[in-house]
């Protein structure tokens, strides 16, 4: 809880600073835009966070979004699939691919980094190949209003992606922090061997988590595809996995596994998007936006590490003191 609080304070402070320097930050249109971005990035970041809690990593998110994006366009505009079928197909493809990741990682004991790095390369290549490297889009094709609404519409002024994020967050929060699955996930991520000795099917937990992350990536992917309205197979979703990883780590997930929370990931995502927004609003050259993000993440994680170390040292000192007192008595 402390971890989330620290990052939350950082988020609030940043918001205050930005709105003081440039009051446009608080304009409804800016806040709406910001919320839309947070929603779209947050959904897949939660999936990535869960994977990180298993002690794994998922690097193929961006490429998978490009692949799903071009497939979605082809299904809807070229093959004339109905909307429900195309959406389900997208989610199913993502789940099958990530099921593959999960099985390679658990059955063949391959390292998650390698498996998903290969995914990153492979899906990007595949997306470019099946489109002949041509940009695919939805233009003004009729009958896609619902999907356009999901990406660009609002529900009582609240952007739909943000609404979806809230719903998904509530469900994942219950699953992670209140359900048997969540407890097993933390146990597996923290100490897979002890979890196995307690009778937990750790392979199943890990594989299931990758599949869930796949489904969430697909949902984010559909939103992004309609948000941009055109999908360039070479660039779409580039480096998005890094946003997810950064959000999870900022929000208190440990890359060693077994640690993290839905709230933390949400705050992490919000912080990243506020940073991007800040670069715009403060007139910082946009070429610097990655540098700003890198610096803030580094400082955030560094501060957290320093506080942890200090707390540990204080505890050791306390224990020394109490044992010294025991000596005198």
């Amino acid at each position, binding site marked *: 809880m402390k971890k989330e609080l620290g990052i939350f304070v950082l988020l609030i402070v940043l918001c205050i600073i930005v709105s003081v320097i440039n009051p446009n930050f608080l304009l409804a249109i800016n806040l709406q835009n910001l919320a839309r971005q947070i929603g779209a990035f947050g959904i897949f970041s939660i999936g990535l966070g869960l994977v990180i809690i298993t002690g794994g990593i998922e690097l193929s998110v961006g490429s998978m979004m490009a692949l799903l994006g071009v497939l979605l366009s082809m299904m809807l505009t070229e093959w004339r699939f109905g909307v429900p079928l195309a959406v389900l197909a997208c989610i199913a493809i993502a789940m099958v691919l990530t099921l593959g990741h999960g099985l390679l990682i658990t059955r063949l004991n391959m390292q998650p980094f390698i498996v998903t790095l290969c995914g990153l390369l492979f899906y990007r290549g595949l997306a470019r190949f099946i489109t002949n490297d041509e940009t695919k889009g939805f233009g003004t094709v009729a009958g896609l209003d619902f999907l356009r609404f999901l990406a660009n519409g609002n529900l009582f002024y609240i952007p739909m992606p943000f609404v979806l994020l809230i719903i998904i967050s509530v469900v994942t929060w*219950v699953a992670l922090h*209140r*359900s*048997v*699955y969540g*407890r*097993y996930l*933390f*146990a597996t991520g*923290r*100490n897979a*061997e*002890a*979890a*196995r*000795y*307690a*009778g*937990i*099917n750790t392979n199943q937990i890990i594989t299931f988590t990758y599949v869930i992350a796949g489904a969430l990536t697909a949902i984010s992917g559909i939103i992004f595809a309609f948000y941009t309205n055109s999908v360039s197979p070479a660039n779409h979703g580039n480096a998005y996995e890094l946003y997810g990883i950064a959000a999870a780590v900022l929000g208190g997930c440990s890359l060693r596994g*077994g640690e993290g929370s839905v709230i933390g990931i949400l705050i992490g995502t919000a912080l990243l998007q506020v940073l991007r927004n800040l670069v715009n609003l403060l007139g910082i050259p946009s070429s610097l936006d990655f540098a700003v993000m890198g610096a803030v993440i580094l400082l955030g994680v560094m501060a957290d590490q320093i506080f942890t170390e200090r707390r540990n040292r204080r505890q050791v000192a306390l*224990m020394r003191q*109490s*044992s010294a007192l*025991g*000596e005198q008595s």
Partner: protein
Amino acid sequence: MTARVPILEMEGISKRFPGVVALDNVSLTVGVGEIVALIGENGAGKSTLMKILGGAISRDSGTVKIDGQPVEVRSPREASALGIEFIHQELSVLDNLDVAANIFLRREPTTAGFLKLIDRKRIYRESDEILRRLGLRVASRTPLAQLSLAQQQLVEIARALSAGARIIIMDEPTSSLTLSETRRLLEITKDLKAENVSIIYISHRMHEVEEIADRAVVLRDGKNAGEIEGGEITHERMVRMMVGRDLKDFFKGAPAEKRTNGAGAFEVRRLRTLRYPNHQISFNVGKGEVLGFAGLVGAGRSEVARAIFGVDETIEVEVALNGQELRINDPQDAITHGIYLVPEDRRLSGLIVDFNVRENITLPNLESYSSAKIINRNKEVVAAREAVKAINIKTPTPEMRAANLSGGNQQKVVLAKWLTFSPRVLIFDEPTRGIDVGAKSEIYQLIRKLAAEGVSVIVISSEMEEVLGISDRIAVMHEGRLTGILERAAFSEEAVMRLATGTND
């Protein structure tokens, strides 16, 4: 005291850890070229004393003198500079390097000149010399991974010698060695003595101590319990001094006379583990019986336990409970059938130390505290509280991180996990390793109580007193083979040791 010139004098050493007095005014003197055996039960303070000597931990009071000069040993490096070297129970060699690189680790001589490269010629030449001196017929360029455990241990000794060791501390050096390897090591130890190297020899193997020690220093509960000189070192005297009380008192509620005769409630037949595929293991444990498993470290006992519990794959096994054949492919299957394992390494396999006591206890049985897969916190808290109370786990609250508990209480948490079910077979692998005496006897009582309730219990233990005291029968293993099963009437340390070292054939 000895007539030898003392090289090491430790006097009045005390050390407290939070809540425990590990050492209380302990003294130890070692003469030049003397072999001193340091003996005592687990937790008697041997390791703490040696860690202080080695600079790994600091003492609260007392003095350490080398050659009559008071010294402060603040780090292993300083200990090494004073000529103190450790041969650890667990090998501390790096098996991704070759023999010479291990011998010269952290003391690599460099070539002259600007680059300061490692002087490879010199380390291979000097390593070969030392290896020859130790009678180890291995080239110093051999990758360490190709050596046997015993050879790797000799490499550690070579490292100590090449560092100019004057005092070598050997901590259970023979615990994973075969009988002939042990003989070789004892010979080498005597040779070192002849070269005026002093040895502090820590061992549970009484006959080794009898054979090589000039003097035995006995510790008990963190205090000096006495010393025995040369020819008077006998097994009897050492054990009496170590335990300081009659063994029978210790194992209260010891085996009842009327027990089932082992007519198999739980049967394991033709078990072949991946580690020892050429040996078949068959045994049975009666309802309410405690079957001990004795043997040296690496004899394959833990492999048997893990195979039964379904953690390790097996080549072949038949398991039956009350005449009913069971299929166990993974721990879930074992748990379903009421077969549970309290594993050897509690911090790695038994517990999730970062979880709190409640979360650890309820982990395997979580479904029964949930509805629709959502955990019912109230039910869970109540179950954890009851478990904590039932076997007297000393923790201020079930919300305490397991890492903060003492070893004994951690072990009780592992056990509490399984007691939330109704066990039919419970396997304990080294149940009291690293646990203080009080908690130990509580664990023994729990084991006897479970047996009295009709559970079939298997206790794997490397502590002779423990396995003799707790078991109704003892199965003994040697290098993957079940070399015999002793009935209570035939129990003796010698009988177990003979089977454990494979000297029967």
